[in-house]
């Protein structure tokens, strides 16, 4: 695949400043041309526009990493937090102010490395948050070290003889943690990304998007092409209420399925909390 020049990317974003999503566009992104994260950002603009989320009620919380820069590119309230800690911060915001739309964005290192202890608890509590994990199987911002989702054998500055550990699979983790909305997307598929982010935000409860979002600078193993070659849409007729079937499909690496794996409509944290409070009134 050939990449657009930096100028072309910026021109495209400048043009887009006049598009229907302009109300949600802020600073121009600073990523490398061709970075997968552009698609996730575009998807979030589209979702905000489709759902018409007023910027004043829209909060994007991020961790640290190339992926962490989202809040500066989106018009809304933003909190560029700490490495790995976006989920608890977002939890505090949402529980304190349930009427806000709160979206969490972070990288693979951020979400299942340093911050891996927070993800299970947000999922099992079914907080009404949307969590977008931009997975490039590398530490991008720190210039190319292995991450918890890097394949075995992958060489990098900190793994000169090859990665010895097995990669984590964020989609299966989300399913195991009890997330009530689990999808996997690929940043080459703009429409799919926008579509599923929109659905995720609409979902009442903890929604998770595992976006395969290649780093075009530092990852020579997991690339657009390698992901593309392995990609397949989830089989027609997959039952999104079947968690264990979703798990089996999510585990597959050949092919790497994409689409909505699982969705379950159960009371969210907000519903439970409201019930408790109402019960205390009398």
């Amino acid at each position: 695949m050939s990449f657009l020049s930096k100028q072309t990317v910026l021109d495209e974003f400048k043009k887009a400043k006049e598009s229907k999503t302009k109300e949600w566009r802020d600073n121009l992104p600073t990523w490398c041309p061709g970075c997968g994260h552009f698609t996730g950002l575009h998807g979030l603009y589209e979702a905000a526009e489709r759902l018409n989320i007023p910027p004043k009620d829209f909060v994007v919380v991020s961790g640290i990493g190339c992926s962490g820069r989202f809040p500066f590119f989106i018009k809304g309230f933003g909190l560029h937090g700490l490495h790995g800690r976006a989920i608890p911060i977002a939890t505090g915001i949402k529980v304190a102010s349930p009427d806000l739309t709160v979206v969490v964005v972070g990288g693979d290192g951020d979400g299942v490395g340093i911050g891996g202890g927070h993800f299970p608890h947000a999922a099992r509590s079914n907080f009404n948050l949307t969590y977008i994990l931009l997975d490039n199987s590398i530490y991008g911002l720190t210039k190319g070290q292995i991450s918890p989702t890097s394949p075995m054998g992958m060489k990098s500055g900190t793994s000169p003889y090859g990665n010895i550990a097995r990669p984590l699979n964020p989609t299966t983790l989300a399913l195991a943690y009890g997330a009530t909305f689990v999808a996997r997307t690929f940043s080459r598929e703009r429409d799919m990304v926008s579509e599923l982010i929109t659905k995720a935000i609409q979902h009442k409860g903890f929604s998770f998007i595992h976006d395969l979002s290649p780093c075009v600078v530092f990852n020579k193993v997991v690339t657009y092409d390698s992901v593309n070659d392995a990609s397949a849409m989830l089989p027609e007729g997959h039952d999104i209420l079947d968690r264990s079937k979703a798990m089996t499909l999510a585990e597959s690496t050949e092919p790497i399925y994409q689409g909505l794996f699982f969705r379950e409509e159960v009371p969210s944290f907000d519903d439970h909390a409201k019930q408790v409070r109402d019960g205390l009134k009398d």
Partner: protein
Amino acid sequence: MKYSEITIRFCGIAGDGIVASGKILAGACANIGLHVMVNNIYSAEIRGLGKSSATIRFSTEKLYSMGDGLDLLVGMMSKESIIDLRDVKVGGNVIYDTSTIGDVAEEDSLASHITPEIQGHGLPIKKLANEATGTNQGKNLVAIGAICYFYSLPPEMFIDQIRSVFAHKEEHIIDINIKAFNLGYEYFRENYPLNNQFEIDKRSEPRALTSGNDAIAKGAIDCGLKFFAGYPITPATKIMEIAAKELPKLGGWTLQMEDEIAAIGAVLGAWFAGKRAMTATSGPGLSLMSEMINMSVMAEIPTIIVNVQRGGPSTGLPTKVEQGDLNIALYGGAGDSPRVVMAPTNSEECYSGIQLAFDIAEKYQTPVIFLSDLFLGQRTETVTIKENIDRNRCTRKKPTPEQLENFQRYQITDDGVSPLIVPGEPGAVYSTTGLEHSVTGNPNYEEDVHSMMTAKRFRKFESMVEDLPEADILGEETADIGIAGWGSTIGSILEGMEIAKKQGVKTKLIKSIMIHPQHEDSFRKFFASCKKIIVPEMNYQGQYAALLKSRYGIKPIEIHIPSVNPVSPLKIAQKIMETSSELSQ
């Protein structure tokens, strides 16, 4: 003997009703208007058959500490109580259980360890309890009955208290407990001639009993706490438990998070969303929070961390007191990272102080670390809580319409405080970050921006001084010996000063709930008026002394007590006497 002040300890194992004994005795004394302080000690975190003790001190005068020594030790369990004999005052008393004497080996028998300078009194505790209740339950009430007679206290005060403690139980339960009390009372009346008298003529209105942890939780809730996030840790958990129970009734919520990083993260989130929020922890948790405290400093998001200190470092001594977290509170964090540090000295200050902490945090957009300690947090004492605090003394700085037009979240201002808006409010939006940033909040690493923003963050600490209370100066103004202390040690210092005064040595004390920043002038003036300065504290390094030395250039006499127990007032008094004789040489 006539007493106006008595200290009693119940000693036993889980199941002996040790804590309940303390509650009944303390509650009864508070009800008739006495001043009371109770300190419970557990040997380990695990309940099991571990030893526990409850020490109750009551007096007709205000109490500041647990004092020194016991007037009476009640050994509910023989072996477990032996070591506590060393705490009994010369001329003090011990009650031991005669009904178990045959069951324990000589070396485990409390009675056989009683030395001539203390008096032992046998009481068939277990036997009388069984007579009253048919089980071992009620042992504590047998002992309380005996105590009641022993110090000729009015029995009604206990009967009333038993009724209120067991109010939710069936009438028959109340009856058998009262019977146990009466049997203990009668046994002592028949066997020991009355020669002790507690002077009770100063009866007054009932007093409320509270712990430091209770007072902090209540203070926070009364000043608008809406969100609490925490992770259980001794000795701070009680604060979270109160928040968990009360906040949902007030439209708020408490979250038990997966760790302390998440807890403080969620608290920052809630403040970002404009709600008053806090967390409470102890040393190990505070250590985990340091990166988030830095985030709070950099992004200027208010936050409140209550740190109930226990012995350290590391997991340390979870059930013992120490004042070892001052350094981490003041300095624990990367970069130039200013934060407010406060330390209440008693339960009243826990209540009013936490409210000041919220107001300062909100107005000056800063983290506040509120340093309590295990002794202050867990002891219960009679207090007079001041509830009428001005709710509008400090509020969030909101932008003017012009400022909103072109909103700069980190606008440079004279007082260092920038206008703050919260999500959901119309008019403007902004993004914040833990990266250095320009006035708008966009990341910026230029030299002049960094120095301007750093100066702004520090300037807030100068402007806030006007909202802070002056230091308290107590004792004799003309004294040559000045003492500076902090936190719960103040109670022991005050009683140590009292002991020295009775020996003819005058002292004065400077104390402030504000550790940083402080009203520095009052400290400077105070130190200038002293010939000798003593700084006692419960840690090995002299952490507060180090702060005072670098801030005020003083050379104090330091008393470092890496204590596991509250500081002894006698120890302080001895140092005062020593210092006084050095001065007169």
